[in-house]
């Protein structure tokens, strides 16, 4: 097959992946609706409406107790394990959610195929222009979302991740698409593989962390008695649990981001004769690094835990998105590799 044919198949694959992701988004949305229904019937059936927040603290307690019970049953051979207080609200995965997650995996396989085809067409890694970069970055985002489920069930973030990914893919396909071109001499380096790939990995973790922080902020408000019109939140983990998961996801992203910054500096030293020169892209990479450093410090500062640090995580992720779109397109600088 000629490069042009491969590239054309890649485009078809990207659009197919988008279609599957849209279906996954719909299924995730239906899952949230179902969760709302469950939460409402639980609160209407059992207690007065005002007890929603108590129901959730029950489920948070349940989560904690489950964790502890699981690990201590081995010790406590002779006693019955403590009854796991399953909150009526925290039910099992709905059919919608299972369907949605299956769709995500199907979409992701097609998405990866699109990247492989684009890479074959170009004869190199597929992220040397903005289009390829966004397709890769979203692929990594979905990949992080898929694999993180092995560690912890965060499928409730599915609708958010799918929305972000589909919007970015749509933007890339419509506005950023460029035909296959030879590689700009400035990009002919092994660092293109490492620096950019690790940057997308970091972005994937920041995306999931941002979603968790948004959920945390909403959950905090619901726990304070607000947001009664978003009942599905009652089926999410408690805000404190969300905060801790978000932290653990974001520090992984932060480690990747630190590496990106350093690999970029080493490359810049080779390519431009200086490892740091406050190029616009360097400035924004630095800003993002400092914001997330601030997030980590906020977690250790009295009065900044909880909502304030969550806002920093969200600001950080917004800055990442800004960096990869607006800065790439409209800011003058040395990272002029959009191909547009």
């Amino acid at each position, binding site marked *: 097959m000629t490069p042009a044919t491969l590239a054309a198949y890649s485009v078809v694959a990207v659009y197919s992946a988008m279609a599957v992701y849209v279906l996954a988004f719909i299924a995730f949305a239906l899952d949230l609706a179902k969760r709302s229904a469950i939460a409402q019937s639980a609160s209407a059936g059992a207690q007065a409406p005002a007890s929603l927040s108590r129901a959730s603290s029950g489920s948070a307690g349940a989560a904690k107790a489950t964790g502890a019970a699981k690990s201590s049953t081995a010790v406590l051979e002779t006693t019955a394990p403590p009854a796991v207080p399953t909150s009526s609200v925290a039910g099992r995965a709905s059919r919608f959610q299972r369907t949605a997650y299956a769709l995500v995996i199907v979409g992701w396989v097609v998405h990866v195929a699109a990247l492989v085809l684009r890479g074959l067409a170009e004869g190199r890694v597929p992220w040397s222009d903005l289009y390829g970069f966004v397709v890769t970055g979203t692929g990594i985002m979905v990949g992080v979302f898929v694999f993180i489920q092995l560690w912890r069930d965060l499928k409730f973030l599915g609708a958010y991740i799918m929305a972000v990914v589909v919007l970015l893919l749509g933007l890339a396909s419509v506005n950023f698409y460029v035909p296959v071109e030879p590689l700009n001499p400035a990009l002919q380096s092994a660092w293109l593989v490492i620096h950019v790939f690790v940057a997308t990995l970091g972005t994937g973790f920041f995306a999931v962390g941002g979603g968790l922080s948004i959920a945390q902020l909403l959950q905090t408000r619901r726990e304070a008695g607000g947001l009664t019109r978003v009942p599905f939140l009652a089926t999410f983990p408690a805000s404190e649990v969300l905060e801790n998961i978000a932290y653990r996801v974001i520090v992984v992203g932060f480690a990747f981001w630190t590496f990106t910054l350093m690999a970029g500096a080493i490359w810049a030293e080779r390519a431009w004769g200086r490892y740091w020169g406050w190029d616009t892209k360097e400035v924004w990479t630095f800003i993002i690094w400092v914001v997330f450093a601030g997030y980590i410090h906020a*977690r250790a500062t009295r009065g900044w835990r909880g909502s304030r640090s969550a806002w920093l995580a969200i600001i950080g992720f917004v800055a990442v998105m800004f960096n990869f779109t607006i800065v790439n397109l409209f800011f003058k600088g040395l990272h002029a590799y959009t191909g547009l």
Partner: protein
Amino acid sequence: MASRTRSESTPGDDGTSAVGDPLRPSDHVDGTPDDDAPDDGAVTQPRLNLVGYLRFFWRQLTSMRTALVLLLLLALGAVPGSLVPQRSSDPNGVVAYQTNNPDTFKILDSLGLFSTFTSPWFSAIYLLLFVSLVGCIIPRLKHHLDALRAKPPKTPARLERLVGFTSVTTTTDATTAIAEARSLLKRQGYRVADYDGSVSAERGYLRETGNLIFHIALVGILLTVGVFGSFGYTGQRILVQGEAFTNVISDYDSYEPGRFATENSLQPFQLRLDTFEPKYAAQSNGTWAAEDFAANLSTRVPGGAWTKQTLKVNAPVDIGGTNVYLLGNGFAPVVTVKDPKGAVVYSGPVAFLSQDNNLTSTGVIKVPDGLAKQVAFQGFFCPTPVDTPAGCRSLSPYLSTDAKALPVLQLSVFTGDLGLDEGAAVNQYSLNEDKLTKIAGFRTAVPGLDLHVGESADLPNGLGSIEFTGIKRFVSVDIHHDPTPGYALLFALLILGGLLLSLFVPRRRVWIKAVPGAGKKRTRIEYAGLARGEDPTLARAVADLAHRHQQHLDEVAEPTNHQDGEHRMTS
């Protein structure tokens, strides 16, 4: 699990040193709250003398909250550096901004926004941040060095308030249980200490070590860049084929020394461009994309012979610690200007700077002496020309061999004052037309000059003649001596390593206590842990420890002697 529960589960009244970290700032979640430094400032304070104020100020500066606010200010302060062109990275952009928006330029310039990263306010933010950082790490360093030599602290009297508290009753006697506990904890990498009837253990010292390395290496990078960086220099030079460059200040087109760089910092060497080989690929949209640039250089150090080296975009040439980088390239038409009598007054290649991917290039030739008036030429060079009303445009970056569209040099002619006599620096690639009169070219009565290689033309008003004798290639190179990258890389690796340790190694204390029961050889064994820093898996780790310990005790005891009795677990 939830690390925030830690503060609720820490014992406050058992008189042990298990909680709080006295060397942390008072508003750190692990710090000891400070009674005389109220959080919200609304409390009446005792009158302070000068020392008191200094101490108060110091404590504020080294508090977590101040560090956090300074961090966020640093991020915020960097934003204008990306919105407004910077003198360091984009000097032409600054000039363009000044021309286009003279009024806003004045305001922004007075705020230092065109050199954001060296402006007083940005410097103030990061210097305060680093002072705060140093003020934080010095006491912590001392504390940590002590901790590295100290035994784990005394077992708290009441373990049941700590994380993952588990209590199991077995038939094993207390001494065996404690001995087993000690060897188990040691195998798991804990440092252990015995306190009567209990083992106190701590692990994860590397977390704090990593944290300190991370922060110290940050200071190291700042000093490396700020101090050692000043010994370097950077300069640019346009190098036309055949020309030799000698590494002395006067041979640079532009030269920027670091603060401590002297003339002696320049390594003696010579550099010559022999050939330049670009490779382009035709695009479907009619433009050409660069595939590869290779500049074949000859270099020579004093006493040595010329050696051939190839310079590419991602592959600088290193000459004894000084690096040469390939920045740009283009064509340099060679012209000869003669006076009316035929005497040569100017001859040589002139670099024309490319304006697009197809190397439509513009340039200026200045002839200050030898003719009746000072003369300048300004115009286009196109390797594969097509005509437009405003001048030629190139269709390809390669030199055309098609007889219908040979490479062309199109020039307008000016006379007047070139501004070279005042001794002030003048950009050799642009023309200040203020004191010049255009005597030939676009929008004058006399048509401009269109020259192909080998052709010559008379200048208007009998000033003389110009001949286009040939075409050479040029490259622009950046010559850079920086003593810091090695150190910066070392500190960067320390930063990364320190960060990974400080984020992913859990620091925790655990205690195993054996309480001999009344009669029947029954022993109650208690397990509990305390997180020091973020430690989301502590509860699971304590449970796992208890489980393994019981397994070991079972193995030590008779195979038939099953553990039994009452168990208690809290979460």
